[in-house]
């Protein structure tokens, strides 16, 4: 009986949070464009095996350094041309999207999870746990990010997985400090005191009461950090410390082809453009998220 009486009310409920969010997000045209590009990239990454015309590793020895199809010497079989050993550029770029997005997402998920735990602990245990965590983060921050990730990779060895570990460590302080700051400001609010009076334990207050109210700036930071991670991974790849050839990682592709900058510029330009477009799209989406989720951080 009581359950039935609640049914019609659901129909007249106020617009859902998601719909409100989308309305704010869609007001930012650039963010929607960025999202569209990002969705295309993500689809390309997910369905790389179906979309790519060739294997990214297959070398067509008769078609080395074929220019893209719009060039007079182009070949319709290789839409974006081939690289210095005759691999299809389009296939390598599509597979590279998979790698780059995976790195970006993996880094952010890892540093987000760690950052939330460490940040909340730093906010709720102000004595030595906070001191240890915050000083450790200061140490990480005191070394330039790329330099530190080079050091870490040099120690644990260059590979894709280790790249992710290194960039996660470099990104971590951003999240820890953000989570801590947000949690500190939320924790003194009356609703947190009310939860304590209701008997909520410290863990419950940390993760169930305070954390959901800190999520807006954290999500924004996470989105913007995906592009940072992609850039760092590309930089490490370019320096030969990230993904190893013949992996079709955009940064590594740039590095192995840079001697052809004059003679076969597309081999260098196309991965560079791919990085640019991806990072730009993610940043636009991040800005849109910030405007929609976190009006306080809005710029201008």
């Amino acid at each position, binding site marked *: 009986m009581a359950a039935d009486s609640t049914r019609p009310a659901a129909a007249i409920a106020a617009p859902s949070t998601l719909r409100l969010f989308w309305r704010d997000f869609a007001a930012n045209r650039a963010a929607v464009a960025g999202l569209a590009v990002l969705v295309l990239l993500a689809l390309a990454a997910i369905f790389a095996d179906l979309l790519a015309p060739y294997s990214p590793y297959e070398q067509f020895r008769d078609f080395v350094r074929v220019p893209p199809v719009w060039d007079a010497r182009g070949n319709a079989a290789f839409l974006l041309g081939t690289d210095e050993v005759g691999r299809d550029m389009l296939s390598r770029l599509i597979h590279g999207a998979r790698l780059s997005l995976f790195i970006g997402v993996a880094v952010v998920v890892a540093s987000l999870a760690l950052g939330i735990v460490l940040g909340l602990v730093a906010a709720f245990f102000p004595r030595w746990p906070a001191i240890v965590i915050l000083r450790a983060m200061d140490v990480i921050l005191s070394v330039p990010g790329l330099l530190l990730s080079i050091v870490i990779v040099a120690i644990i060895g260059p590979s894709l997985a280790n790249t992710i570990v290194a960039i996660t460590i470099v990104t971590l302080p951003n999240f820890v400090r953000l989570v801590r700051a947000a949690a500190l400001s939320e924790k003194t609010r009356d609703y947190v005191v009310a939860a304590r009076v209701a008997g909520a334990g410290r863990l419950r207050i940390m993760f169930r009461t305070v954390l959901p109210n800190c*999520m807006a700036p954290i999500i924004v930071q996470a989105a913007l950090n995906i592009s940072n991670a992609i850039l760092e991974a590309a930089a490490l790849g370019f320096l030969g410390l990230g993904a190893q050839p013949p992996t079709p990682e955009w940064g590594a592709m740039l590095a192995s082809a840079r001697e052809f900058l004059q003679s076969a510029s597309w081999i260098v330009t196309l991965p560079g453009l791919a990085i640019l477009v991806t990072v730009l799209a993610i940043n636009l989406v991040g800005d849109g998220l910030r405007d929609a989720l976190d009006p306080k951080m809005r710029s201008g």
Partner: protein
Amino acid sequence: MSARPLLEAVGLAQRYVLPRRLFAPEAVVHAVAEASFTLEPGRTLAVVGESGCGKSTLARMVTMIEPPSGGRLLIDGADVAGADAATLKRLRGEVQIVFQDPYGSLNPRQTIGDALAEPLAINRPQTSRAERREAAAEMMRRVGLRPEYADRYPHMFSGGQRQRIAIARALMLRPRILVLDEPVSALDLSVRAQVLNLLIALQEEFGLAYLFISHDLSVVRHMADAVMVMYLGRVVEQAPREKLFAAPLHPYTRALLSATPVADPERPRARARLKGELPSPLAPPPGCAFNPRCPLAIAKCRVDRPALEWRGETRVACWVA
């Protein structure tokens, strides 16, 4: 009147030590000193005073958010200070609080149904989700909200509705003591009366003891059975309501009463204006803390602090009164 009080505070005190700064001596703030009072079922004790007089600190001690730095707090005869974890958990359930600002006291990311069910989920984990929802719906009906609103978020409600939600949440554990920390001062006048009447009805229904904190004497007059006037952390006058409003003894109480607007233009207005500011609680004046602003102050007031003494049914701390 003769039964054992539900809550008894004896000489309750709270002092905060401010961290030492360079070239500054250690500073101690006596936020509350020597507060003694009792709460009884179905009765309301009002605490009145300017901002900064220790009202909210008192609320935090009574709700066991902060342990007092001195004095004893007995709830249902059990001393809070010496209680073991299980007793403390039970006692916490007996005392709940409603805050002043209904915009800050509800979790913005929690539906109000979840907010009401949460105290039960924490303290009575053996109840089923459906039972808790039913209890929340029942309490929403009780405070005058439609139970269909359970899936909405706090930002969809008005200030008065939010305060009803906050009251409902405080009552979910069926406490016997409710601390009301300026529960209506953030509400506009028309809503204020509704919420006060709701509080009176709930008090009768559940036999609640209220510790009603306010700076608004017209509200206090409507609600209280007894009144405690505080100034700079100390109780200056404690009296039954009729006595306090009919014959205030302490000059500070008189000043407060004369500052309350009266809806009667014919009545002659004799305002006892207070001069000066509330002194810093870091450096309270010697003697009676009120002496720099008191119209009746004599030499003794500047040297010796008067103790709280009985004058008939009233207790007052003043050399002159």
